[in-house]
């Protein structure tokens, strides 16, 4: 064992020789080896983004098939079973395999760059969370493609999901796949939390975090708390189905309603987890195109946290009609109405930012600013469902379908596409095409509203959700046809977006390090950033390091070119949780096969569980154990057995 060393990081000026040294330390091996072993957060982030967009496209195609079936009354394009699997798979795909991973992707890519760090706190855990996401997504889709997709909605209520009413493998695929995916979300969340609190650039105190970081941080804390509830619920469901336990079986002393509590105590916070980071994208992106800082940074950051805290107390609004006592309903109704207020803070902050700024109408601005309106529409319809008696009419009609699509498309897809227009130059070094961008925006915006605005009325006219066909009641046919036409126009818009990405990757106009003249740290490095992100660790003196000279914040300027060199190995700096004082040198892990081996082992294990083939389970368990052993094998380079390095400041 080496003697503890109290090394003070060398301070120096960034330079070509220094960067060359860093490059050799940080670059990923070429070829297949690098493909399977890389722990670079940027590569992992892009993989998340690409995979999530593929799932978005799949979920979108499923939606279009359903919209063909629903284009007119009493159509018979699909059998009831096909329709039920499609709407369930669509929900599963969009909520679990697109909406959350896409935000993880952006956060993975952006966080270290926003925070002035060279990687996430746990790079190998980061790789693991991606591989498990991919493997569990393939697992879930293997069910769908073999005709065993989920068929009881993404919410999966028992007893319809129990073996008596659902004898096929459908629910086993779904239950095990969700437990599998839960591992990815959990390790990812832990990584984000530690990264936010420990790997910020010196000087980036907690009140200088970009709002995107606040959003993902808040969402990650929530995920860490609530994902165990749903993983447990799905595990219990699988036990009920395969081993005759009676957790949810009323005849055996269980409770059907227990599932709903466990599911929604997860499900509602999850909704905030898949919108808060996207709201953060708008809070960070919109001001760049308004040429001024965000209005009300502190209240927006606090309202992000407040939304999540209140968000833990609203899950019963999914269960208003289940016969719970009135007093309980009143509490959850009050909380659900009150949660409107922190959301309103963000809306007024965004409008004030535009009002007091000088908006430049770029495609990214169009997506971000239109999101404000879509957010409000999704918000007020949510407010309506928060009122218990009103909800007794609205719930389980198409009104709620309209509401949730305004929330998920309006507050997730629109900001995400806007974020692509905004950050694509950073990721690729090229702009997305602005002219195609306008077509992209207007087809998406008009198509979306044509599809989903009339759907509120479809709901008010009483059309129930999750029906594979419907009768020709007055008004329904016209409204549904509008929705079907709108959904195809919206899909065309999304297609234009994909076309723009593919085209611009090859022929897009070149973008420099800071093509928008934006204020945050990611724009201080080249586009695309080098593997080590920052040649020297920046020292941050304000919320807008690259705008300081013009905003005259406090006279002290951030330092980009001069700082800690940290080039005696794969190193970055750890700082204190609140004030971001330098605390210790972090030795970052090399690329490793362990995450992908661990994932392969888990995949074998879960396939074994699905087939109840215990030999396969045992093989999977051995591979998992081997992967963990390889992962945890003490490595001298990481100094995993040695005490912390003394603070570098002073």
């Amino acid at each position, binding site marked *: 064992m080496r003697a503890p060393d109290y090394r003070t990081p060398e301070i120096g000026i960034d330079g070509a020789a220094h960067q060359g040294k860093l490059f050799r330390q940080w670059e990923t091996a070429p070829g297949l080896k690098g493909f399977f072993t890389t722990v670079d957060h940027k590569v992992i982030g892009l993989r998340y983004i690409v995979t999530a967009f593929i799932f978005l496209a799949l979920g979108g195609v499923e939606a279009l098939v359903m919209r063909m079936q629903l284009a007119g009354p009493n159509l018979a394009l699909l059998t*009831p079973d096909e329709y039920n699997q499609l709407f369930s798979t669509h929900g599963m795909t969009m909520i679990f395999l697109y909406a959350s991973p896409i935000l993880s992707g952006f956060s993975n890519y952006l966080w270290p760059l926003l925070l002035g760090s060279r990687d996430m706190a746990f790079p190998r855990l980061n790789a693991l969370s991606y591989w498990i996401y991919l493997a569990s997504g393939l697992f879930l889709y293997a069910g769908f493609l073999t005709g065993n997709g989920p068929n009881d909605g993404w919410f999966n209520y028992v007893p*319809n999901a129990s073996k008596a009413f659902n004898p096929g493998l459908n629910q086993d695929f779904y239950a095990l796949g969700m437990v599998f995916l839960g591992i990815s979300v959990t390790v990812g969340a832990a990584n984000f939390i530690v990264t936010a609190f420990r790997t910020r650039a010196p000087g980036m105190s907690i009140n200088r975090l970009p709002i995107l970081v606040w959003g993902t941080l808040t969402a990650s804390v929530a995920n860490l708390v609530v994902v165990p509830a749903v993983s447990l619920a799905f595990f219990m469901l699988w036990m009920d189905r395969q081993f005759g336990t009676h957790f949810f079986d009323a005849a055996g002393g269980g409770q059907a309603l227990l599932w709903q509590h466990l599911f929604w105590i997860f499900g509602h916070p999850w909704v905030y987890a898949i919108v808060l980071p996207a709201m953060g994208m708008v809070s960070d992106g919109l001001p760049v195109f308004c040429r001024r800082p965000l209005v009300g940074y502190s209240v927006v950051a606090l309202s992000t946290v407040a939304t999540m805290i209140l968000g833990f107390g609203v899950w019963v609004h999914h269960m208003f009609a289940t016969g719970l006592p009135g007093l309980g309903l009143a509490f959850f109704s009050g909380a659900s109405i009150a949660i409107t207020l922190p959301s309103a803070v963000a809306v007024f902050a965004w409008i004030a930012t535009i009002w007091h700024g*000088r908006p*430049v109408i770029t495609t990214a601005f169009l997506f971000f600013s239109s999101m404000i309106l879509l957010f409000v529409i999704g918000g*007020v319809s949510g407010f*309506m469902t928060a009122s218990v008696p009103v909800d007794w009419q609205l719930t389980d009609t198409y009104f709620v379908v309209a509401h949730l699509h305004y929330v998920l498309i309006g507050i997730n897809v629109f900001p995400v596409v806007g974020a692509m227009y905004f950050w694509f130059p950073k990721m690729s070094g090229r702009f997305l095409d602005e002219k195609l961008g306008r077509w992209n925006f207007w087809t998406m915006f008009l198509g979306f509203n044509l599809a989903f605005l009339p759907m509120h009325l479809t709901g008010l006219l009483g059309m129930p959700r999750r029906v594979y066909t419907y009768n020709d009641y007055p008004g329904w046919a016209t409204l549904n046809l509008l929705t079907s036409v709108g959904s195809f126009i919206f899909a065309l818009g999304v297609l234009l977006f994909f076309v723009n990405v593919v085209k611009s990757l090859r022929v897009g106009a070149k973008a420099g390090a800071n093509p928008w003249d934006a204020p945050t740290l990611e724009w201080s490095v080249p586009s695309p950033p080098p593997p080590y992100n920052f040649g020297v660790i920046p020292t941050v003196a304000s919320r807008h390091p690259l705008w300081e000279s013009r905003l005259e914040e406090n006279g002290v300027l951030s330092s980009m070119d001069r700082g800690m060199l940290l080039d005696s190995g794969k190193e970055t700096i750890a700082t204190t949780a609140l004030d971001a004082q330098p605390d210790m040198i972090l030795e970052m892990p090399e690329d490793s096969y362990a995450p992908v081996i661990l994932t392969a082992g888990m995949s074998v294990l879960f396939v074994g569980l699905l087939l109840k083939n215990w030999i396969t389970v045992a093989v999977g368990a051995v591979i998992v154990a081997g992967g963990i052993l390889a992962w945890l094998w003490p490595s001298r380079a990481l100094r995993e057995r040695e005490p912390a390095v003394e603070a570098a400041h002073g």
Partner: protein
Amino acid sequence: MNTSPLGYLNAAGTYAHHILPLTWYTLVVSIGVCVVISVLLWMAIARNRVARDVETRDVPVERGGNGLRWISVGLCISAVPLGVALVWTMFVLAAVASPPKQPALILDVTARQWWWDVRYNGDQPSDVFETANEIHIPVGQPVLIRLHAADVIHSFWVPKLSGKTDVIPGQTNQSWMQADAPGRFLGQCSEFCGYQHAHMQFEVVAQTPEDFAAWRASQLQPAPDPVTAEAKRGLDLMETRCGLCHEVRGTRAGAVSGPDLTHLMSRRTIAAGQFDNNTGNLAGWIEVSQAMKPGSLMPNQQLSGQQISDELAYLETLQ
């Protein structure tokens, strides 16, 4: 809009009347908020936007106005309609959440994949009878409905009369309704319940107390003995085949897993509201139910032509 049979922007019963003004209030507030925000957003963009051909990076960065008043004023204004909604919600909740203490009628409704079993209770066992997918109630009187689930979760909903109440295995939820005037009101299962969730409807028939009493008395009658030879053969079939699942009171067909058929012909629809109750549909339903309602628990019977006409002749007598 008022003609849509499941629409709830008009009400025909006490419970729904309590909710409707609150629905309109929240709807109008919501539309108002959307309009105001749209206008503000439009003005915010229009008042200072830079010319089309100017690049983002060429526009200087300035702190501009403080803007915090937007948030404080905005929050204060928003809190008012929210507060009103909250208080109003509590009042309506108190008014409709508890079923009436002195109901004129107590019904036990059992939701099944994919139909509704309705049991009328009475003081005497001889006053008790069952029917299916059609609930008759007297107007102007509160009716208590106890909800039971035979298999999976369903939800009981008659939009013009009352909001949804889920029907959950292992617990007995309650709903209630009180119709203003005679009429027919459509009900629909509104919790996903599997294959034929889409076709799980029922009808509430509100009648004057006199008509209701007459209907009830007629429903209490057992099925009459068949007269014609055809109908007699039909009864045979009923007892030997249909009777494995269905009941016709007064005959040996006494099973309870399908709808009670004693007064089948008094009902307007078959297959939980999916088809009009007429000879053609009945014949089709008996022969090829799986084509008409895939996945339904009613099997195809594959009767001969003779058997079908016998069976229909018998069913015609079940008025």
